[in-house]
């Protein structure tokens, strides 16, 4: 990729004269999920700085703790004493019940997070939290305890726009992380290196910026981290290795928090998160080191202020450069949420209608494949995942068949209806205004509303011919407009943002 700006110019603020509807669409698609016309208009009028202040607010709305998570925590506390007295057979049953409850709470949380993130006012910030969770990875499959996964996300959200070292320390105390990377198994007399290694390699610095010795010494500093039975983090001083450690050439009686500060003392720490951001938000192609250093230096000087980083990154000339427009592949989460927002739909509040498609598209929420997180970009796409995206599109044009639902699911659907959040399916009313247009105008309207780049002439022509073949029969015309829209949403260009 040829970059149109020098490293020195790349992170300068976008000049006011270059802020327009196209730029707003780009910002909304990349920082959030998609560019709904009303949101584009609002952002264009507000200006870039005000829009960024709104997308990344000082007091962002947080996902309320789902009732099933609360219940699961209480149930787990109650389980403790009963479990102690149970026979082996009863223990197996209790254990299985607890796993099932945790699993159900986890699925419910997945649905709720998606619904929360689908609200336009939450989109950019929740995507930022998703990004942070793709750096500071924990996975449900290993942690198993849904409430701890919720707390990890809550902790990321609460620290998402503060100082990065504070976030890093909070992450190291996150109960889910303690379980995920075996911190509780890290003992004074027998250090477990898992956390220290991933902290340096994947969370803070990147390979090549530390030695095996640094890992071994750092692991000693992270001893004494424990969880109470209820899952709260606790520091056990008697389990902590009080000895002298040498990390990054510095020697002292370091604690885990000290080690995180030491890591942030290295210039590599300034480059690591911006590097991850470019990969998550901009392009599969890594930015050359000079560009990362040009952002990393000032970020470091800001005291590693994450709010500063979002404003500088999303407000930069580089972010809006032509080489980054309309050419990045949506993640499955973004594909799903953009589809809901573009079609003005509510998400179906049933895990199997949401979590299964996500899995088939290759992204299971709260459960990245490993500690490195999702690879993303072109790796999202293969013939299987593309088929899953197409299946999802088809599904939102089909009404839900109530007979296929379980009793519990019917209750959920009725509750959504009572709350006025049951617009799950694209209806004829959505399509009729487009069907009223002549074929050329209908294609123009459909493609400009939904695609980030104009489609090629052959596709436009064939769509136009396809719609025209339905005239003048109104029913057939409407059917063909619907099919044309489905095809557009299944097309390669709709996978891009």
């Amino acid at each position, binding site marked *: 990729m040829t970059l149109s700006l020098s490293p020195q110019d790349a992170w300068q603020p976008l000049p006011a004269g270059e802020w327009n509807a196209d730029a707003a669409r780009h910002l909304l698609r990349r920082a959030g999920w998609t560019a709904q016309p009303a949101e584009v208009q609002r952002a264009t009028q507000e200006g870039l700085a005000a829009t960024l202040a709104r997308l990344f607010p000082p007091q962002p709305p947080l996902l309320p703790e789902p009732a099933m998570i609360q219940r699961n925590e209480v149930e787990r506390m109650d389980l403790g004493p009963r479990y102690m007295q149970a026979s082996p057979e009863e223990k197996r049953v209790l254990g299985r019940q607890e796993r099932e409850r945790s699993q159900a709470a986890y699925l419910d949380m997945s649905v709720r997070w998606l619904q929360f993130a689908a609200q336009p006012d939450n989109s950019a910030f929740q995507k930022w939290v998703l990004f942070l969770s793709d750096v500071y990875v924990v996975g449900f499959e290993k942690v198993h305890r849904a409430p701890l996964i919720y707390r990890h996300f809550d902790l990321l959200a609460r620290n998402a726009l503060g100082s990065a070292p504070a976030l890093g320390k909070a992450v190291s105390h996150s109960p889910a992380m303690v379980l995920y990377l075996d911190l509780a198994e890290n003992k004074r007399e027998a250090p477990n290196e898992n956390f220290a*290694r991933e902290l340096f390699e994947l969370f803070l610095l990147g390979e090549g910026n530390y030695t095996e010795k640094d890992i071994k010494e750092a692991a000693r500093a992270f001893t004494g981290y424990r969880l109470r039975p209820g899952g709260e983090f606790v520091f056990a001083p008697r389990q902590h290795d009080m000895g002298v450690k040498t990390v990054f050439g510095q020697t002292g009686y370091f604690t885990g928090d000290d080690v995180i500060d030491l890591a942030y003392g290295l210039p590599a720490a300034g480059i690591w998160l911006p590097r991850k951001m470019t990969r998550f938000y901009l392009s599969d192609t890594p930015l050359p080191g000079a560009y990362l250093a040009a952002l990393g230096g000032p970020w470091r000087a800001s005291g590693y202020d994450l709010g500063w980083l979002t404003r500088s990154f999303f407000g930069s000339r580089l972010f809006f450069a032509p080489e980054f427009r309309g050419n990045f592949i949506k993640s499955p989460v973004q594909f799903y949420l953009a589809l809901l927002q573009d079609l003005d739909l509510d998400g179906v509040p049933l895990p199997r209608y949401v979590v299964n498609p996500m899995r088939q598209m290759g992204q299971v929420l709260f459960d990245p494949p490993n500690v490195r997180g999702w690879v993303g970009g*072109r790796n999202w796409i293969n013939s299987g995942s593309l088929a899953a995206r197409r299946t999802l599109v088809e599904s939102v044009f089909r009404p839900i068949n109530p007979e296929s639902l379980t009793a519990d699911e019917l209750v959920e659907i009725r509750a959504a209806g009572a709350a006025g959040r049951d617009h799950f399916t694209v209806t004829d009313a959505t399509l009729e205004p487009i069907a009223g247009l002549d074929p050329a105008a209908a294609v123009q309207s459909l493609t400009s509303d939904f695609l980030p780049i104009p*489609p090629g002439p052959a596709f436009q022509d064939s769509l136009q011919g396809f719609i025209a073949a339905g005239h003048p029969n109104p029913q057939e015309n409407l059917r063909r407009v619907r099919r044309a829209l489905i095809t557009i949403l299944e097309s390669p260009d709709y996978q891009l943002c």
Partner: protein
Amino acid sequence: MASNNPTPFLPTTRREFLSLTGRGIGLLAFSRFAPSFLVKAASAAVPSPEKDRTILVLVQLAGGNDGLNTVVPFSDGNYRRLRPTIGIPDDHVLRISDTLGLHPSCTAMQGLFHDGKLGIVQNVGYPNPNHSHFRSTEIWETASASGDFLSTGWIGRYMDNACAGRPGADSHDPLAVHINTLNGEPETFIGQREHPTFGLLAGGGGRRESEETRKLLETIASETGAPNSEEGFLQHTLMDALVTEGKVQNILGAYRPAAAYPANPFAASLKNIAALIAGGMPTRVYFVSLNGFDTHVNQADTHANRLKTLSEGLAAFQHDLEAHKLDGQVMTMTFSEFGRRPSENESKGTDHGTAAPLFVMGSRVKGGLHGTPPALNLPKNQDVTYSTDFRSVYATMLENWLESPSEPVLNGKFATLPLVV
């Protein structure tokens, strides 16, 4: 940090892949992370089926398999010293020699061993071992030296080499397909990381409407996006997927396995590979991944479970191939990014280590033990030193199985092992 490409040993451009598959040297992957050859080129140009071609199936044991508890040196006092709590007791191991035994989960593999269809290459590794999952995986996949960073993989280079100077064919046929089996049961959600699923496209309005969409999409997929652009990449993938969908579905749907496969995603992947081989696909290399081997804590149950999955899946696959008389054509080989530390940690688990044994399976494998076992007279927390370079195993597969010179692929000369009969 590893590159973004999860499996860098695969070809990286569609043209590269087309020219390769044109010669009947395709790849097929079954893993959560489709290797990039799939991502880059699901289209395959297919020559007339060449049923006598040898086929290599690569089985990745992701996470770093604990070799010492897989092929257990049960009579070695050092093993008992290093593994005081998680060591496999003498009377539990499945003996394969006077000094070695398989993990008790591996009864099916013990049977293969006794039938001479399973070879074990002991203590495979490389100099200056790296303990990072990602870097060490990359080293195995690119067949690089520890300090070198290669952008191509060993299978990719094999294909380069095999196809140099030959014209590529150009048709759409199901060669490189990521097959996803739709599993409609939400209860199975827990822990099912690898879903070897084939995404059947459920058309919204029945067959006619699916056909309409397919025709329209074909017009856009045949448009040419800018070379190397994301749009062009998506168009190619879509076109390939459209053509592939029906064909692979037919092959898998019609397949009647002649062995009972266990009900797990790994075995399902192997069954699908058997189906595609039996269906006459000209694919030369298949890739399937089994994960969960990163056993830092309380490893006994996890590891036993993983090995059982591996052992039973491999045996079912071998028996199925035999019943279909395809076994003479197929060689299966496992690999893992590293073994684990000989001394157990305080969490009844093991940390990242270095060399480990790997398995080769097939009717034309020279069964039994190959290479030498690791020396275990080690102080606590020291790693074993490898005795067979993994590139020697690759050289053997290239020279003696895929019938390709190994030196240009491996960028050096590595001795071959007597693994192929």
